[in-house]
């Protein structure tokens, strides 16, 4: 099956600054792809290129097999939802929804039917005669989604649509967008800097940095098997602990941490047989404490330096052989700085990267 959106060798320079560098990306029919990255990574720029709001310097964009690189935004079969909602302030909700259809010179009764249907799907029927100023943030964003919905497009583009909403509303709308995707089965491309949104919504996540896709995979793989140190560090909160160590293969693969040899017999190698200087990464949530630590294959004795109680759990700052170490303990445990703690982990859950290119081993 041909991809819904296909991006080939896309480059974009603003003067001497490269914002997108030779980017290739295929997005399947009905896929929910999230572009994730910190600000300035090029994710919004890429989305604007797909929408036709920015012209690439080189490369091409195909939607459903058509080369749309130089087409007008409205001729591409896309709808777009913006962070600031971007509703036309002087038009009613109905006017906002029908503006695109009127520009396409659609017959009046067809417009009416479509607006009514979109309003029903989004449950905004009572708001149709109101102006955007009279709506709440959540309602506005629903109207903004509706504007894309009425045009019956193949691809929905979301540019940080939930960033202007408060935390509670954000969680509600996130679920709604997910439900919408399940109902409509359209292709959706969603830009965000929020990893929770990315993890919960995406079929696949593309993590971007400096105009390059660092990893493109399912949330599960991105979390458990990050392709490089950047992704490993970026995903997860608090972020992964890294030990600077050496991987040896003479007696079976093993690393040395705080003077202890840690066997990697259970580790699923991406590149078996590689050895040398490495980063050994372990997520805070994969470090076990208490009785569980006693059962773990690798165990250490550490001292708590700082505790951040967060209710359900407490985040403990500590160090091991000069390397800062963070891990979580049950919220019921009372931790005071200076307490000695037994920790342990399963090396199979670790991520190991070489120190030259910082790619997964």
């Amino acid at each position: 099956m041909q991809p819904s959106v296909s991006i080939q060798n896309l480059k974009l320079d603003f003067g001497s600054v490269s914002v997108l560098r030779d980017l290739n990306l295929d997005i399947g029919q009905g896929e929910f792809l999230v572009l994730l990255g910190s600000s300035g990574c090029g994710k919004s720029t890429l989305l604007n290129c797909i929408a036709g709001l920015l012209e690439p310097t080189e490369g091409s964009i195909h939607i459903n097999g058509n080369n749309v690189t130089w087409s007008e935004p409205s001729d591409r079969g896309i709808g777009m939802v913006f962070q600031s909602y971007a509703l036309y302030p002087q038009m009613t909700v109905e006017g906002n929804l029908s503006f695109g259809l009127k520009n396409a010179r659609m017959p009046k009764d067809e417009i009416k039917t479509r607006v009514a249907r979109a309003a029903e799907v989004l449950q905004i029927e009572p708001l149709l005669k109101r102006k955007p100023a009279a709506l709440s943030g959540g309602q506005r964003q629903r109207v903004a989604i509706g504007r894309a919905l009425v045009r019956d497009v193949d691809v929905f583009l979301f540019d940080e649509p939930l960033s202007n909403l408060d935390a509670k509303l954000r969680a509600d709308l996130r679920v709604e967008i997910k439900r919408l995707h399940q109902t409509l089965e359209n292709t959706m491309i969603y830009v965000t800097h929020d990893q929770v949104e990315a993890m919960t919504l995406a079929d696949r996540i593309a993590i971007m940095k400096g105009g390059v896709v660092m990893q493109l995979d399912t949330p599960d793989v991105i979390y458990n098997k990050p392709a490089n140190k950047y992704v490993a560090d970026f995903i997860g909160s608090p972020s992964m602990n890294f030990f600077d160590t050496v991987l040896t293969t003479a007696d079976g693969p093993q690393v040395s941490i705080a003077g202890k040899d840690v066997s990697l017999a259970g580790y699923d190698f991406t590149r078996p047989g590689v050895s040398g200087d490495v980063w050994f990464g372990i997520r805070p949530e994969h470090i076990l404490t208490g009785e569980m630590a006693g059962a773990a294959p690798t165990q250490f004795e550490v001292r708590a330096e700082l505790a951040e109680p967060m209710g359900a759990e407490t985040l403990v700052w500590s160090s091991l052989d000069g390397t800062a170490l963070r891990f979580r303990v049950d919220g019921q445990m009372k931790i005071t700085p200076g307490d000695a703690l037994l920790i342990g982990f399963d090396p199979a859950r670790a991520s190991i990267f070489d120190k030259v290119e910082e790619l997964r081993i």
Partner: protein
Amino acid sequence: MSQSGKPTALFKNLSAKIAAIPMVLTALMVFVGCSVWTIIYSFTNSRLLPSAEWVGLDQYERLWGTRRWLISIENLAIYGILMLILALVIGFLLAALIDQKIRFEDGFRTIFLYPYALSFIVTGLVWQWLLNPEFGIQNAVRNLGFETFSFDPLYNPDTVLYGVLIAGLWHTSGLVMCLMLAGLRGIDEDVWKATKIDGIPAWKTYIVVVIPMMRPVFITTLVLVTSGIIKLYDLVIAQTGGGPGLASEVPAKFVFDMMFVSQNLAQGFAASTMMLVAVIFVIIPWAYLEFGGKKHG
């Protein structure tokens, strides 16, 4: 539509380019074209009609040997310096007074600014009437018993400029007040709280803290008032007609009369070119202060 190729650079954004044609024509034909035309023809001996006969710097030599031009320049210099200083001082004082959390602020502001809505012709004619020695202020004061009171600036070559200045200030100081008031309102309230805690008196706060903070407002006002001064024409026409004698002649009037009355076009061109040079001397330091200074700050 889906398979269209890359548009050529010329047709990209075509509607915007078409919409910008009036601007492009104005910029190139009028602002650049006409200015260059005038400068070029100032080197010819055009009289009633533009002529292409080249005479080099003759027109400029003649211009700087003309008494009327020298008087015009001197008048504009005196008027300009006084106008600038007084307009800024009065405007700032008005703004500072209005900024004292007073009642009827809008009312006072409306009164101080209304002359600015009137034309220079109206301004000139009103003040001509008020300064009329036979029936105006002089007469009114004499009627009160001060028989020797004398106030007829417009009829005395030595004082006529100050008569024009009074009218000019009446017209323009409201504008300066408005700009200054905006500047004062732009200053953080915390500055006032801080100086109050430090026990600095209000007048000192204005001089030491507030005025330096309002530097950009002062510069912008300076530029606006100055470009108004150089264009000074209507007010003189209405109030004094340049008299008595040549006592209130100004460069803009000199240019107009050379071009449209005396049929001495090239003199007008040379004189207006000198005006342009003067403006450039005002703009360049301003542009330097405004745009050059920012890189360092």
